[in-house]
């Protein structure tokens, strides 16, 4: 096993490559991270972005911006407005937002005064997709991602909007998978490889999905000939991305961070009722919880010393505690025996982490990302189904 001498990472779901530099191993993420110091390079990249955006203007809107009420959305929207783009904010409801998430989303569109579209898939169909995804792939976010990408790309095409703009390209930032010079765009391949965990549409609907055939298009990524003239781009490919510092700035725009138990980053994915609970437990089951990425990110930016970070990563389970029952009870509305069966049979490797408290607290390491006025959710599952 090769370990990066700079950050200590050995593997990542997006896959890493390692180079030997001055006798030391350097992972692709650290290798790419070195570019962040090159201000001349980024001035040029931002110029390229502005030229690209000015080159193709839409009739009414210049870009679709998919949001989830997260701190990152505040940075993306603010940046695009500063470029004098007329943006259409699109929120695809995954029914996982709590009261803080909804409040942050409404604050975003009010504060920046942007036009927005909210799309809520049929709740019963969505639940069936989540159940199928959980049963077949141990993943509860997959249906949301499939619907999101299908919807935003189709909407951009329908409304003749030339760009769909995402903030961070995760495989690039967390695994250094692409060069910044690659001019990476969103594609069917990219989405399948990085967002859908290599699960193909046919595989998803294959067997066990109790959903009418007419609703399958909900999760089918549009064909390339249909998507002609729609460009999906990532801002992190053109700007020196520093997720944590950018997210903290959202406080100025009245963003509410959320107190979390399983990470010290109260900004990323604040407002989700499942992200650091059941979703994170499934991440831990399949690979590593989200705090793994947060620790490595902070080490690369020299905001966390490697020794502390590595100690947490090596003893990760001591820092984790998950309460997943509300998801089964309030979202899936399963019976107690159904919940117990699932934990016993499908979560056997991680069931020791389903507990009230962990022996150690990951948020004891103390970073500026643990904003002292962070909120605690009062209403975990807000399932608006009409009237938005």
């Amino acid at each position, binding site marked *: 096993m090769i370990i990066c001498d700079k950050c200590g990472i050995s593997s990542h779901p*997006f*896959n*890493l*490559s390692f*180079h030997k530099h001055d006798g030391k191993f350097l992972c*692709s993420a650290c290798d790419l991270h070195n570019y962040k110091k090159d201000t001349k390079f980024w001035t040029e990249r931002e110029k390229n972005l502005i030229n690209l955006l000015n080159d193709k203007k839409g009739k009414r809107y210049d870009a679709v911006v998919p949001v989830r009420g997260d701190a990152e959305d505040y940075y993306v929207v603010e940046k695009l407005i500063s470029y004098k783009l007329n943006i259409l904010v699109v929120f695809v409801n995954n029914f996982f937002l709590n009261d803080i998430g909804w409040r942050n989303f409404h604050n975003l569109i009010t504060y920046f005064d942007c036009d927005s579209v909210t799309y809520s898939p049929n709740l019963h169909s969505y639940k069936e997709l989540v159940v199928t995804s959980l049963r077949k792939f141990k993943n509860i976010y997959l249906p949301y991602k499939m619907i999101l990408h299908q919807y935003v790309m189709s909407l951009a095409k329908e409304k003749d909007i030339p760009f769909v703009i995402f903030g961070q390209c995760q495989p690039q930032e967390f*695994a*250094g*998978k*692409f*060069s910044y*010079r*690659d*001019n*990476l*765009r*969103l*594609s*069917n*391949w*990219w989405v*399948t*490889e990085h967002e859908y965990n*290599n699960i*193909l549409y046919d595989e998803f609907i294959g067997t066990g999905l109790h959903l009418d055939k007419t609703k399958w298009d909900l999760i089918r990524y549009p064909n*390339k*000939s249909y*998507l*002609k003239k*729609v460009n*999906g781009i990532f801002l992190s490919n053109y700007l020196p991305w520093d997720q944590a510092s950018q997210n903290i700035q959202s406080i100025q725009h009245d963003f509410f961070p959320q107190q979390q138990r399983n990470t010290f980053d109260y900004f990323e994915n604040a407002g989700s009722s499942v992200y650091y609970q059941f979703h994170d437990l499934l991440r831990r089951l399949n690979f590593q919880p989200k705090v793994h990425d947060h620790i490595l990110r902070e080490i690369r930016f020299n905001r966390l010393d490697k020794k502390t970070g590595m100690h947490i990563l090596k003893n990760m389970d001591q820092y984790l505690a998950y309460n997943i029952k509300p998801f089964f009870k309030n979202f899936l509305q399963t019976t107690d025996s159904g919940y117990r069966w699932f934990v016993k049979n499908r979560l056997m490797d991680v069931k020791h982490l389903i507990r009230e408290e962990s022996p150690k607290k990951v948020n004891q390491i103390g970073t500026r990302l643990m904003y002292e006025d962070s909120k605690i959710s009062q209403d975990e599952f807000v399932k608006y189904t009409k009237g938005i």
Partner: protein
Amino acid sequence: MRIGLATIYHQGNFFQSFEGKYFKYLGKPRNIFDSAEYHNFSEILVIHPKNPPISSSYASTKKITDFFCAIPLIISGDILENKAQWFDTSGVERYAFNSLCFEEENDLHDQYLKDFGRQALLGIIPFVKEENHYYALDYSRFKKRIINQNLIDRLFHIYDEIIFHDISSHGLNCGFDFNIFESINIPLNRTIICGGVNLNSIPTAKKLNIAAVYFENISFHSETLIYDHMR
């Protein structure tokens, strides 16, 4: 002119390569093949390097041919020496030889010719430019050889087509170095170019009547860039 995809393969996974020095994970074969079909590529060159930092094996080649792929596959870099193995990898449409290119005489050529016919055989010349001279890289012998008319004539006599692979531009999307064709007489209608090919390379390649161009990493960096351009 045919449009193909060139990609690096190692132990069951595909990789992006930059300048032939840096390798980054790209994806699993099934997703790569699906994507290549989605982009309507005419053929896929699977570069299967033998030398460090990555090496190859028969098992690895066999694995790739077990996937169903509707696009013809060309295997380069792991040309099998065992006759039973050739037939075992029946999913391979053509073979591209590198090291054998530089051997004046080798029985393997004749055997391949006899069993599969000339159309199945390609030569691949990875090249670099140094001090205004173009050198072919002979990977198995760690040697650089100057590209001269004798070599070219001999290779076009043996192989159906020759792939000129610009190693120093590979993965950089900076354009293929067409100057290599100026100093030597090459039948361009039997020539394939690869390495740095971008959309600006297409008009020149068409003008020169090049047989095929192979895109590398950029094939996976956009949805419709190549598709839009070609149609």
